């Protein structure tokens, strides 16, 4: 008995990987993602070299205005002499943090609600799905802006939580549909005849079959969460204690360097675009892994 036979998840992971790596989109997305992950890891290095490289509080004592790239500051400094490169690295860390935690939360909520609605049916289904509809049509950004206006500056984790709370309905709709079709499959009836409880059927039989889909949706949710956070920060409602790319853009905008300092404006802007692009590409490639119909002819299944 090999390791591959023993561990189903590992096995299906290997199979998925062999399809995934044939996809150009997937490879580019993954490469970009690895790059950003490296940036996030490296964000701890500059402040450790010299306290003046601290992205938030470190100020170069010799510089009091915005300067272009130099040997000492590879990407230049902002209006008060803070290092842009170290801010960019810290921004990568925040982007991952915000994106992944918001996505995981919304997926957990979405899967739980979707499976419950699909499995229970009837009244509970109607109730949960109407709730999902109501939340789905609410503009997330606007609601967060209003909340920020009411409660003042929002903590980054509060923002993550709100994004998650507003982004589950899409997931739960998909998961509900999948659950509805799984519920009718004979293997669920076979489990019932064996005496399985509802709890067991949901968690042992339905969940393993909807999880791949949930993971796929997670990549798209990451993108959405990062963009929402960036937009919020750019509009000035971000967490003032966190250096995110949206925050950097806001500083560029507020200090009037929008068209004067491209070395300050471009890096965070490009990073936001590229990280969302990379998660999107990753999602598309995973879509191909999960849906055999999307594969090319010569690909093996």
């Amino acid at each position: 008995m090999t390791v591959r036979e023993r561990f189903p998840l590992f096995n299906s992971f290997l199979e998925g990987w062999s399809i995934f790596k044939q996809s150009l989109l997937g490879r580019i997305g993954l490469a970009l993602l690895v790059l950003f992950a490296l940036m996030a890891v490296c964000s701890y290095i500059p402040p450790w070299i010299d306290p003046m490289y601290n992205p938030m509080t470190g100020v170069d004592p010799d510089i009091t205005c915005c300067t272009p790239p130099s040997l000492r500051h590879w990407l230049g400094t902002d209006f008060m002499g803070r290092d842009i490169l170290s801010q960019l690295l810290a921004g990568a860390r925040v982007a991952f943090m915000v994106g992944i935690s918001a996505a995981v939360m919304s997926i957990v909520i979405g899967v739980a609600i979707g499976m419950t609605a699909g499995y229970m049916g009837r009244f509970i289904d109607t109730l949960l799905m109407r709730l999902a509809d109501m939340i789905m049509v609410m503009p997330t950004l606007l609601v967060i802006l209003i909340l920020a206006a009411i409660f003042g500056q929002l903590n980054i984790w509060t923002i993550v939580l709100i994004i998650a709370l507003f982004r589950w309905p899409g997931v739960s709709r998909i998961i509900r549909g999948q659950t509805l079709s799984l519920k009718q499959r004979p293997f669920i009836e076979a489990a019932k005849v064996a005496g399985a409880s509802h709890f067991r059927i949901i968690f042992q039989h339905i969940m393993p079959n909807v999880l791949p889909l949930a993971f796929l949706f997670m990549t798209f949710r990451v993108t959405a969460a990062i963009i929402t956070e960036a937009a919020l920060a750019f509009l000035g409602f971000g967490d003032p204690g966190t250096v995110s790319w949206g925050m950097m853009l806001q500083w560029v905008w507020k200090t009037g360097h929008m068209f004067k300092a491209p070395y300050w404006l471009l890096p965070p802007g490009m990073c936001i675009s590229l990280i969302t692009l990379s998660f999107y590409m990753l999602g598309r490639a995973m879509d191909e892994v999960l849906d055999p119909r999307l594969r090319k002819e010569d690909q093996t299944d």
Partner: protein
Amino acid sequence: MKTTDENKPILQIRNVSKIYRGKGNLFRSPGKDVVALNRISLDIFKGEIFGLVGESGSGKTTAGRLVVSLEETTSGRIFMENREVTGLKGRSLKAFRRKVQMIFQDPYQSLNPQRSVYDTVSEPLKIHRMGNASERKAKVKEILKAVGLSPPDDFLFRYPHRLSGGQRQRVAIARAMVLNPEFVIADEPTSMLDASISAQIFNILLAMRKDLGVTQMFITHSLAAARYICDRIAVIYRGNLMELGPAEAVIQNPRHPYTQALIDAVPKFGHAKEAKLYGTLLAKRREAGKDKGCIFYPVCAVADDAICPRKKPGLTPLDDGRMVACFREGSDPEQTSFLPHVSNKGV
């Protein structure tokens, strides 16, 4: 009947009907009700293999699903070892499910693709808290060997997509048999498999009866399969029992025109179409009688226009120990006002 203990009916179906109601709503008038089963009564005795034969849509699968409580009866009662099983809930339902298992038709659909053979076969044991981990494993290996998946170690951690159709159905049988049930319903277990594999599956079922004494209800559309495996068979047409008796007798010498038509429909090697033995099937449907008439009347070539469209024949015992619902064979009209004749102990 080889091992049949005639005095002990293990399963009694009494006057069971299942009607699927057409759904309507505010904007749509309700569709027609579909009568899947119409007041079926039969007994199945301990240790026998009872065949339920009929064409597609005749209600035979519904009968199986009702017995294992996957669906609820519209009316009528089902008894298992003299205890009513219709409407069981909670703990008593779980206890009942330990005794009655089902083998499903399509082995490609009845196994969870995300679970290994071991997960699937050991699940009933886990659900009913039988044995510890090593005992369960030993039991699973034993049952896999019994259904012809050996060596069992090769199969334990395989996933359904790495099994052939025949192997999948063996796994499904193992799952049904692992609890040592007293009664198993096999719902067309071989309809998705080719002939040689089917024969192997039949032999497994026969071995299960011989070794474990499992009573079985075998649902099939194939008379050949029914004759090979069953002790007694019941022929069902559009939810109504037509003929019930020892398998050999019913197939060799059918008395009901519908059974005869079924025999005629079996393709015979080397014979052209005209070589019909009975010719009881009408080529063109005739006008149906009133609701009360015989259900087979519209396509019956030997019907008596005086009575068949007006009254429904009840299942009546014949002198040779079988039961037929046909006026031509001297059946009495079915009494709808009180409980119809239910016992078939004379068989």
